[in-house]
């Protein structure tokens, strides 16, 4: 629901909103794209941010590749379902057959509900003349916070989150909308590589 509402309030059309849930199907990236567009950034800055956020799915894929089917077509479908939730459910099981079942069951269930919810949320916003009246402009930050919170269980990610927020706000007046996010992404990548070398 919340994605459909936020996306259409950000100015994406109903088909564009549904296409994101059907074809992108990775929540944080979808919210990021519409968050950047809603804040006045270009769709390309939004797309770059979405792809950067999607990079973690490659690591999930790596962990899942030994569990999931190796055959061609099923693997192509499986890839679409490689997200936070399915990975968590799959790697929580010991037995490979159970892992596979957990992966597909979680993936299919989430895909159906996520897309139905998106459509319902997007339709609901269609009847709202001004999104601000319902506080819909305050919804994206809350969504990002809810996605961020489970990743903050140690001191280092907390410090990184705080620094990232400050850096983004400091850059913001001087560069086009959406670009502060890319600056933050470059800085954190440099930090990660430098730290890993020690």
């Amino acid at each position, binding site marked *: 629901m919340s994605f459909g509402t936020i996306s259409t309030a950000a100015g994406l059309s109903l088909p564009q909103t549904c296409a994101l849930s059907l074809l992108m199907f990775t929540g944080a990236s979808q919210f990021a794209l519409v968050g950047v567009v809603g804040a*006045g950034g270009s769709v390309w800055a939004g797309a770059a941010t979405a792809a950067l956020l999607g990079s973690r799915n490659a690591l999930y894929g790596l962990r899942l590749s030994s569990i999931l089917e190796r055959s061609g077509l099923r693997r192509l479908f499986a890839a679409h379902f490689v997200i936070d939730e399915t990975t968590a459910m799959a790697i929580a099981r010991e037995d490979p057959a159970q892992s596979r079942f957990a992966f597909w069951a979680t993936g299919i269930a989430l895909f159906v509900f996520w897309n139905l919810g998106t459509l319902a949320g997007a339709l609901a916003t269609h009847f709202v003349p001004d999104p601000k009246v319902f506080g819909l402009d305050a919804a994206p930050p809350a969504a990002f916070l*809810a996605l961020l919170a489970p990743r903050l269980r140690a001191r280092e990610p907390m410090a990184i989150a705080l620094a990232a927020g400050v850096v983004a*706000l400091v850059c913001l007046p001087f560069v086009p909308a959406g670009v502060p996010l890319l600056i933050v992404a470059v800085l954190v990548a440099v930090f990660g590589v430098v730290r890993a070398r020690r």
Partner: protein
Amino acid sequence: MWAGVLVACAACYALKLAGLSLPAGLLQDARVQRTIPLVPVALLAALVATNTFSTGNHLVLDVRAAALGVAVVAVLLRAPFLVVVASAAATAALLRLL
């Protein structure tokens, strides 16, 4: 808009497939393994900050800050995703009514 949406979808799918299909060695590099989990932390935090405290290219402090405060409380209380988002939106809407 459509081009950006579709390219982003293709990029996200390619990343998912890459993890499943690329030879393990490429992504198992220690630097890649340790850096990639930091990216969502930094980006999501930056998104929280910019979506709360700015309009266009200007830093602003408005009802969204209060709404974020309510969202923080909801997160600390381990509220479900939809409750966190809805409570923030409701806070902003109510404060604007006052």
